[in-house]
């Protein structure tokens, strides 16, 4: 296909009808009939004689960018080098209704294309098919297609008030109080000065009060020094385990690849991405180290690290997580550094993620299971589908109960992946888990 201007069927028929009317008028001696063909002929000749000799250059394909409001936007630049023209455009995107529009391109212009999405990850949007034509449709170019544009939508995050920590903090510095004495802020005790204690830690008030209180000592005689000892600070190591083996939407009828997932509804994987990103941001902001493992892809995990650049790396990796084929079950759980807090994001619709969580818990890790199943729609299910769903639901409830009994703490991530729609239940649940660690200490 090229961009040469051609006479359209409509244009050719305009010319033929014009000539027919004029010839008919001449043959029948009726000037009024011949005049009827005049506007059609003038219109055709006007456009045809002004057609460009060169081919119409291809338009630049749309460049997609993401808005914070869950909107994907692209600019489509249009230009006609021929007679003042029109563009017949069809814009389509997977999961969206196709839009057809006819616009004027009498001058170079930019059309803004947009779709609203609640989903994160890789999107392929805005396939544009278009034909540039003259204003009266006498001439047109060949149809052209701009293929789907690919864009990676990173998961959004929401602010969280408090998050649980591992049972044991193993770092040498950080923002959390550890249980061993060392340089920190929280008071551990007041004790006798010993070798290794710093002079600036001497508590002169306690020393003065205790002076001369020993046997055979005169009042006010300085005999022993007392120091204030504090708890050391440490950072936490957190491992996020995302179960990307399956992606289910709110519509139960679409489970098992029986239907297409709607782009305006968050799936379990979108919620998992959003939850994992929110937790990662919170922990990294607190100076902790965060790692990431994907149960759906058996490859090396992202090792725990800290900092803003690491957050970007995690967000990117989370956005790329998607179900790929049928992953083999793990023979043993992926290796996690000792003392790390493990947070598993899964729907727990099968045994694999729950089995991993239980194994990690048995090996001494503190394990949180975040249930990312979206709020379901079951009202329109057929009786057979409803029965199947009830069986799956009962199995899932049993699985989560079993997890709780094995010591894994379970949190349901309420709301959609959209941070504005999320409720405060998540905050309440995590705050309760924070207190549980304090009680253990």
């Amino acid at each position, binding site marked *: 296909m090229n961009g040469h201007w051609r006479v359209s069927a409509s244009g050719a028929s305009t*010319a033929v009808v014009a000539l027919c009317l004029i010839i*008919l008028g001449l043959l029948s001696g009726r*000037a009024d009939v011949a*005049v*009827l063909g*005049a506007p059609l002929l003038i*219109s055709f000749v006007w456009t045809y004689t002004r057609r460009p000799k060169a081919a119409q250059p291809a338009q630049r394909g749309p460049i997609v960018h993401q808005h914070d409001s869950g909107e994907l936007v692209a600019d489509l630049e249009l230009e006609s080098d021929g007679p003042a023209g029109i563009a017949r455009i069809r814009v389509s*995107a997977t999961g969206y209704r196709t839009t057809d529009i006819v616009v004027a391109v009498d001058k170079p212009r930019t059309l803004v*294309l947009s779709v609203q999405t609640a989903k994160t990850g890789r999107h392929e949007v805005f396939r544009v098919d278009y034909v540039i034509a003259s*204003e009266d449709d006498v001439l047109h170019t060949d149809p052209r297609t701009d293929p789907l544009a690919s864009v990676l939508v990173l998961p959004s995050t929401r602010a969280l008030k408090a998050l649980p920590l591992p049972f044991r903090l193993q770092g040498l510095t950080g923002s959390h109080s550890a249980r061993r004495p060392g340089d920190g802020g929280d008071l551990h005790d007041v004790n006798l000065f010993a070798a290794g204690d710093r002079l600036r830690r001497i508590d002169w008030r306690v020393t003065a009060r205790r002076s001369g209180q020993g046997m055979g000592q005169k009042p006010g005689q300085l005999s022993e020094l007392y120091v204030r000892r504090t708890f050391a600070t440490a950072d936490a190591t957190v491992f996020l385990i995302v179960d990307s083996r399956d992606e289910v939407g709110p519509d139960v009828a679409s489970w098992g690849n029986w239907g297409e997932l709607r782009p305006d509804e968050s799936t379990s994987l979108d919620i998992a991405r959003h939850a994992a990103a929110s937790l990662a941001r919170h922990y990294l902001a607190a100076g902790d180290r965060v790692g990431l493992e994907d149960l759906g892809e058996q490859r090396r995990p992202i090792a725990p690290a800290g900092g803003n650049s690491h957050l970007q790396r995690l967000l990117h990796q989370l956005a790329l997580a998607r179900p790929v084929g049928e992953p083999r079950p793990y023979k043993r759980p992926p290796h996690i550094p000792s003392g790390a807090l493990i947070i598993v994001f899964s729907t727990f619709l099968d045994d694999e993620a729950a089995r991993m969580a239980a194994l990690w818990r048995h090996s001494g890790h503190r394990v949180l299971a975040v249930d990312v199943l979206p709020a379901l729609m079951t009202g329109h299910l057929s009786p057979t589908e409803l029965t199947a769903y009830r069986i799956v639901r009962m199995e899932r409830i049993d699985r989560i109960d079993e997890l709780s009994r094995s010591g894994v703490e379970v949190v349901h991530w309420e709301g959609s992946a959209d941070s504005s729609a999320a409720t405060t239940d998540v905050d309440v649940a995590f705050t309760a888990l924070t207190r549980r660690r304090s009680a253990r200490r």
Partner: protein
Amino acid sequence: MIGTEWWNRLIRTLSIGQSTSVRPLPPVVVRAGRTVPGWALRATVVVVALGFTATLATVSGQWILAIIGVSVMIIRPAGGLAQAYALALGIGLAIGPTHPFAPRAFVLLFGIHLLVALGSLATGLGWNTRVEWRLIALSARRFAVIQAACQVLALAAAWITDHDINAIWLTTLAGLSIAVLGSTLARDMHTVSSQQH
């Protein structure tokens, strides 16, 4: 059991007995200027076609033909349909019992041009296709210029006809001009087509 299959297919097509909770997918939004829907443009073409048929139709046969033509334009507005309808209107004027350059000829000059212009714009438009209002305004401007020139031409032709001026040389010249123009365009199109291939 072909009948049963056919019946089942019809039931499925009409979505009878299926869940009513099928929600429409979200649309791809194209931000352009003010637009009119494609069905409105199609309806306008139909109104124009039937309206100007009314200036000519004297027998019921013409109305039947008009309704068939309009129905085809509503169902599938393919390229050339409006032009064919315009040709039929012209033939109707030629064979009709009217005096040359009666007022209806001027009305038809306007109507045929309008029908072809709107029909060209509506060619291939879907019901939900949106047409930018600015495009219609641009087309209207061009339409007005050409139409004004043609009405002047028609008035001149009417004046010549009324004054019974013997213009055989003018008729011959017009015929020759049309022949030359037609052959030039045909040769040019053939050349362009062969170059492009």
